[in-house]
């Protein structure tokens, strides 16, 4: 139960600044995900909240109190590390009760707390084992259990699932969501995997190169990406990007020309564009349809069958790659010459600097 606030937080390693002034508020009981590619500063940000990394400039506040001078041990936060970081010389029970032992909690109370957490995580039979006798998934549970036992103000999770196999990852994602609901504690989750962020978080902060690109709920980010980076980062398969030129612009409509001469009409963005300007058109695979007289002819390169649906990876005439989502039984094969139509109402436009051009109409 804690509100965590960052005010113009900067981090420099020597003269190299890796986090460039970040402001954000993580509200009480929120599941907040920091997502971004490696080197985006997301882990550094989390470690600054934890106190494992010094803040070069700015303020970190927990429940309104600045904590820059509070050591990690006194911040009341618990952390789950990517490599689990269990104490190899202690049993599972000792690992879990270590924080309570340091806090001077009597033995009986410790045992009782450890046992109740072990019951929740279904790992009672493991309590007497040493970490080296456990599998990756079990280690992960112990690491989470160790964080839970001390009933922290907030959980900080640093890529906790990235060492697990895909099936286990999917299972742990659900368990974490359930755990968050049951514990109703603030959780800050760092991941490079947008899927994890999308499926678990209440809100997501997309970080890129030490800056916040966008902050919002998973659906907000998916539907209204503020930048080209967010548009490309959130969603799998990635959003398609096509270079287009403004052919004509009116107050309501915008006619855009593709490199092959075909054109499409979309709702005009709030910002006025002039004929001849070049912009990027972004469209998600589910908004690209296979259609005989579509405006974008191309050749199927690879077909990805997922059962209920298929992804058609195609190459357009000018060499641009395009991914379209189609029903699973679509009768096409690699090498087929086809044509695609995009749903203009679902298109996103980005200017030369990569900022989204605000749409005047409802998003798709």
């Amino acid at each position, binding site marked *: 139960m804690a509100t965590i606030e960052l005010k113009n937080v900067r981090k420099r390693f020597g003269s190299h600044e890796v986090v460039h002034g970040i402001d954000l508020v993580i509200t009480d009981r929120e599941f907040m995900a920091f997502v971004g590619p490696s080197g985006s500063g997301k882990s550094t940000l989390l470690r600054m909240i*934890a*106190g*494992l990394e010094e803040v070069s400039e700015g303020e970190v506040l927990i429940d309104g109190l600045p904590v820059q001078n509070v*050591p*990690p*041990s*006194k911040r009341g*936060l*618990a*952390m789950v*590390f990517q*490599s689990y*970081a*269990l*104490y*190899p*010389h202690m049993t599972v029970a000792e690992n879990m009760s*270590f*924080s309570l032992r*340091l*806090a001077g909690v009597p033995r009986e109370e410790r045992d009782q707390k450890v046992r109740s957490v072990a019951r929740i995580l279904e790992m009672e039979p493991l309590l007497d084992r040493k970490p080296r006798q456990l599998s990756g998934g079990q280690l992960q549970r112990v690491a989470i259990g*160790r964080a839970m036992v*001390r009933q922290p103000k907030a959980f900080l999770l640093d890529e906790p699932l990235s060492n697990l196999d895909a099936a286990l990852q999917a299972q742990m994602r659900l368990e974490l969501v359930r755990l968050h609901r049951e514990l109703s504690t603030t959780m800050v989750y760092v991941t490079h995997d947008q899927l994890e962020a999308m499926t678990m978080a209440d809100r997501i902060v997309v970080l890129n190169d030490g800056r916040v690109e966008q902050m919002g709920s998973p659906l907000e980010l998916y539907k209204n990406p503020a930048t080209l980076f967010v548009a490309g980062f959130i969603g799998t398969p990635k959003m398609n990007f096509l270079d287009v030129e403004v052919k004509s612009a009116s107050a309501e409509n915008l006619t855009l020309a593709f490199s092959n001469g075909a054109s499409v009409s979309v709702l005009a963005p709030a910002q006025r564009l002039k004929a001849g300007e070049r912009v990027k058109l972004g469209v998600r695979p589910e908004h690209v349809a296979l259609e005989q007289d579509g405006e974008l002819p191309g050749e199927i390169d690879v077909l990805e069958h997922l059962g209920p649906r298929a992804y058609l990876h195609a190459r357009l005439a000018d060499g641009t790659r395009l991914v379209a989502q189609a029903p699973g039984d679509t009768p096409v094969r690699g090498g087929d010459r086809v044509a695609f139509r995009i749903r203009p109402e679902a298109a996103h436009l980005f200017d030369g600097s990569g900022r989204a051009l605000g749409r005047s109409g409802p998003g798709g």
Partner: protein
Amino acid sequence: MRNTWQARWGLTIAGWTVALLMFFPILWMFVTSFKTEITAVATPPALVFRPTLGNYAAVLERADYLAFAKNSLVVSLGSTLLALLLGVPAAYSMAFFPTRATRGILLWMLSTKMLPAVGVLVPIYLLWRDLGLLDTVFGLVLIDSISVLPIVVWMLFSFFREVPAVILEASRMDGATPTEELTHVLLPLSTPGIASTALLSIILCWNEAFWSLNLTTVKAATLTAFTASFASPEGLFWAKLSAASTLSIAPILIFGWISQRQMARGLSFGAVK
């Protein structure tokens, strides 16, 4: 098959040859200690002789072996303890909170071992004299711990570096103070390393002769001084010198024999990574 069989025999023979070459002087000393002074210097060396315990009797009669042995024991253990007390925090901070100066400090510490001890004999002697530390066990503990400290810090540093920093961070998140982090996590995790550092330090301090010869006379003299005292005054008495040497090295030899597994394990720790 044939090749590996031959290679194994070759290695075994080479190993035994080196071991015997290294052990031979000790063996010869041991054998000589049971000879009379005449047979001890006989050429060609007498391989068959009547063993006598006379040298041991003479040596023990002339000097209080147990007093010297006690000093050696106290000085080795005391210096090692002091060096560990100073070395553990130093190595901890250098291994987990390195700065730009860390490498330089480590090299500087090691460089003090390249300086011959005799180079600082006069200043140390004067300091010890003015501090009233000459011929005191504490004075010898102090100088011995200083002289093994660079090796102790280097060894501890490399053992600590093997411990993932994230485990210490986890303990910090669990509420551990730096002291608790050391005592509950780092030290238990690096016990094999600390043990072999201590063993090596004990052996080095036990065998240390220079300072004990120069800074002690009677009260704080160790077994190295005891051995040396048989070397000069009335000419060379090889048999008695051998007996004294055998008595001096016996405890540490037995100690080394018992702890060799631990030593080998510690010294090759991390080498296979």
